[in-house]
């Protein structure tokens, strides 16, 4: 799980933060509710998770709540990986 958290955190930092961005993201930083990731751009993150972990996330699962922190994202992905 720790390795997955590192991978997801690295992707989020690379995909959503600008080089000069002052925001710092940790495993429990709010992503959606803070505006770092919005509902429109969340699609990139969903695609990354599906490709990286060979899973399929339904729209019912890929909610703003489930995608709000690295921790909650990894719990969701973990469920699919058994």
């Amino acid at each position, binding site marked *: 799980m720790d390795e997955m958290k590192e991978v997801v955190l690295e992707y989020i930092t690379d995909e959503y933060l600008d080089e000069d961005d002052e925001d710092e993201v940790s495993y429990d930083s709010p992503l959606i509710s803070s*505006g770092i990731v919005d509902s*429109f751009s969340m*699609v990139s993150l969903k695609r990354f998770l599906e490709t990286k972990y060979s899973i399929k996330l339904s729209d019912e699962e890929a909610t703003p709540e489930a995608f709000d922190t690295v921790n909650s994202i990894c719990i969701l992905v973990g469920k699919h990986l058994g």
Partner: protein
Amino acid sequence: MAFSDSTRGLFTDEIEKIKEDGLFKEKRFICSEQDAEIEVEYPEGAPHAKVLNFCANNYLGLSSHPDVIKAAHEGLDTRGYGMSSVRFICGTQDIHRELQDKVSAFLGMEDTLLFPSCMDANSGVFEAILGQEDVIIADRLIHASLVDGIRLCSAEYDTFKHMNMKHLKKKLELHQDKRTRLVVTDGVFSMDGDLAPLDSMVDLCNQYDAMLLVDDSHASGFIGKTGRGTHEHFGVIDGIDIITTTFGKGLGGASGGCVSGRSELIELCRQKARPYLFSNSLAPPIVSGSIKVIDLISSSTERRDKLEWNTKYFREKMEEAGLDMRPGETPIVPVMLYNAKLANDMARDMYAEGIYVIGFCFPVVPAGKARIRVQLSAAHEKEHLDKCVKAFRKIGEKYGILGLGKNEIIEKYGR
């Protein structure tokens, strides 16, 4: 009665939640023509106040131009009030064709199709031209109407960091396996007033075989040397495949929008775009008024030149006054305050000084980036601009923010 107390309660709770979140939009009534100086009833029931308007999209000051009003009257007298039809049944008049042709010539595009609004144009264009084999790659800060249109389309979509060409390149590389790629951006972004780097975007689209769509609603009529838009500004008129724009801002300010671009794409919109197929034709007076607008701005650059002068002058004076603005060259001037309460309090105090501006905060702009958005117009005279700057000086001094930069304002008021 089906609307029971418990049903009503559901909706009142939701309205209360909007109020609690500070997102409730209050009613404001304009009791005059749209212009630089307007008469406003605010709050509801209050005596009318004469204020200077710095929050309209009336960039060229054409909303109440006598020639445009006269042309609209002529349209009303000769072509009637409404069409009582969608375009493809019996709702297309000769003046609809004339306006489409004139817009195509003005924007430098092959063909144009009118829509009831640019919101409708953006809602309909993607679904009409793309399918599930295609991908849309959009800037993350595009207008909400483009987001809605993209979501209505079966094509896959992806996003890139705002105006970040390195990231766009990466996404274009990622999606080379798709049938077609469509890159989507605003020409001028409405909240920040920044210009999408269309020259670099055209280069990337050529390199990676992608089409480019630009929503130029906040640019048509005044950006570029002759006001053609952002594509003229960057010298890439031939490199744009689709422009969507509105007649509701610089181009007269009434209503209506269009999709303009490659003839095959426009034909597909004519055949398939649902907001075009299933909503009424643009009313004749608006079509006639819009034709006059295009004639006026095609024959003279006087109004866009004045707007350019106003923009330079206002930005210089505001900088001298010590306000923290996002740098730029467009008539959208964001005065950065970062804190939502500060933005709303200052906007209210500006109104008391006779200056009508609005505070914008999350989720309309990113969290921690609250601002007052000032919009300039060719209808503004120098004394209007001076009065606005004077009010910003006074209110800025009251809140102790003059001369402060981002970090200092945040330190004082928080985000």
